[in-house]
């Protein structure tokens, strides 16, 4: 079995390229926000939020070595708890986001305590089942609006600062700020001793387990952080769209998130943002033109999985190396 573990792919890790890519993505997003219209601004905000979700999956997969097909549950936890905080308890949306983060972390901690001991395939199945359980519960819960969901959720009101959150321009910036914050936090963790330990754990499962229960602790830490990040994404999502419905917690949402990080390149963090942007734009644009876009998207997914081991990140890295070489010759 240890030979199987061995074949897990090496993680993309290159802090400088990571930062470059991040800056490029943020700048192009800013350009779109400034020059784009109403729709574009919403679109960018949505991509930023999806990127946060993708980063949470990326962190879990790359640092924890865990693949979750139930992470949409944490999107749902963040989204529904924010909704309840805002609508039922009248808590300000910004604080609601922070509280949702804490709730997400707590539930993540609780769940991971039981499930991180499971190995690869079982872990995937259990997260899938847990996510579906949550979905089924939300779908029929009267409190949470059942299948129709809840609408009419307001955005953070900071009009005392002279800023109107209902302006998509402002909200897009707000989402980008959150995305950047999470990017920097996850980057810091990745570069820290904790991140290195997590990486060691992932790369050589067997050897670290030799030093006792620490492996489990690290996995729990990774899962908890990742759950919290996903909850933030859920919380922002509600504030962006003003409604929440159970569709957000379906396992296919987690699957699409995984596709995003595979397309972007696992482990590179900013690759997750790139992947989220590319996959989302692609789906959106394709479904406007052809009704059998799923066929094309499915094919592309398969091609990426088969032939682009490191996703777009790998492509960029290769390109960069080639450019470097070319430059040195001159």
């Amino acid at each position, binding site marked *: 079995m240890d030979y199987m573990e*061995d074949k897990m792919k090496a993680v993309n890790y290159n802090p400088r390229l990571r930062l470059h890519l991040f800056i490029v993505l943020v700048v192009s997003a800013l350009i779109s926000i400034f020059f784009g219209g109403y729709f574009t601004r919403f679109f960018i905000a949505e991509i930023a939020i999806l990127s946060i979700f993708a980063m949470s999956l990326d962190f879990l997969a790359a640092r924890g070595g865990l693949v979750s097909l139930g992470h949409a549950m944490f999107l749902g936890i963040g989204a529904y708890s924010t909704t309840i905080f805002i609508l039922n308890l009248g808590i300000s949306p910004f604080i609601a986001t922070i509280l949702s983060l804490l709730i997400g972390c707590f539930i993540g901690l609780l769940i991971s305590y039981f499930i991180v001991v499971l190995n690869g395939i079982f872990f995937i199945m259990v997260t899938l089942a847990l996510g579906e359980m949550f979905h089924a519960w939300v779908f029929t819960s009267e409190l949470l609006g059942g299948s129709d969901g809840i609408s009419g959720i307001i955005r953070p009101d900071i009009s005392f600062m002279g800023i109107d959150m209902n302006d998509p321009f402002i909200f897009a910036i707000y989402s980008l700020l959150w995305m950047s914050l999470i990017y920097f936090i996850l980057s810091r963790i990745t570069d820290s001793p904790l991140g290195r330990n997590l990486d060691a754990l992932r790369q*050589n499962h067997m050897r670290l387990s030799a030093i006792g229960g620490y492996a489990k602790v690290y996995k729990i830490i990774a899962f908890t952080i990742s759950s919290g990040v996903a909850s933030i994404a859920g919380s922002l999502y509600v504030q962006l769209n003003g409604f929440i419905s159970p569709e957000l917690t379906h396992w296919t949402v987690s699957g699409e998130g995984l596709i995003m990080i595979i397309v972007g390149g696992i482990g590179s963090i900013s690759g997750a943002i790139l992947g989220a942007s590319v996959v989302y734009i692609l789906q959106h644009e394709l479904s406007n033109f052809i009704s059998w876009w799923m066929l094309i998207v499915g094919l592309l997914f398969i091609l990426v999985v088969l032939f682009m081991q490191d996703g777009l990140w790998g492509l960029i890295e290769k390109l960069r190396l080639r450019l470097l070489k070319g430059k040195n010759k001159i």
Partner: protein
Amino acid sequence: MSNVLLNVENLNTYYGKSHILQGISFSLSDNDCMAILGRNGAGKTTTLRSLVNLSKPDSGNVIFMDENLKNIKPYYIAEKGMTLVPENRGMFPSLTVEESLSIISQYNSNNLWTLPKIFELFPSLKHRLKNKSNEFSGGEQQMLAISRALLTNPKLLLLDEPTQGLAPNIVNELFKALSSLLKSGLSIIIVEQNIKMALNLANKVSVIGKGKTKWTGSKSKFQNNTGVQKEWLGI
């Protein structure tokens, strides 16, 4: 002198991103028994796995009976006459002994090894045909593992730590059987912690340290070379 059976040239194998084998070379003739020695983690197991392509070498050549084994599947290598008895003995918990022995394809009728001959070598197996192998003691498992390997009609048998976890009297019995195998014309490569036992059997020794072949030679030269023994084996 007999013919060269196996020639290993500068084998390099990666395990994930870590470079485990960084240059393994040795050669083996017909009816040789080579002991591969080295400290824990030196790369002995990986060497054996690389020979049968279970771990694919990144560079270097394994030439077995004048054929380069690069990109040949383990299944064909086994068919050609080289097989491995791994450290964990590779038991099939869901199969009975009889099934374990019967699944090995025997195409040609002039096989050296048949079931009766196996039972001659390891009489105790005969009485346990209907048992499942996970109910066995370590010694019985090892016998079953070697029997299975013999049924593939190998020219060269690779043994990874065959005595690990066995009681001393069983170890003796096992080595008796192994030396009778050698007499019947088989070649053996053995990786063994119990250096003394291994040297009883072997006529050649290869020492591996940090993934590289450090020393190769005959048993007598090895026994006289205390320098090598001390530096790489800590004896």
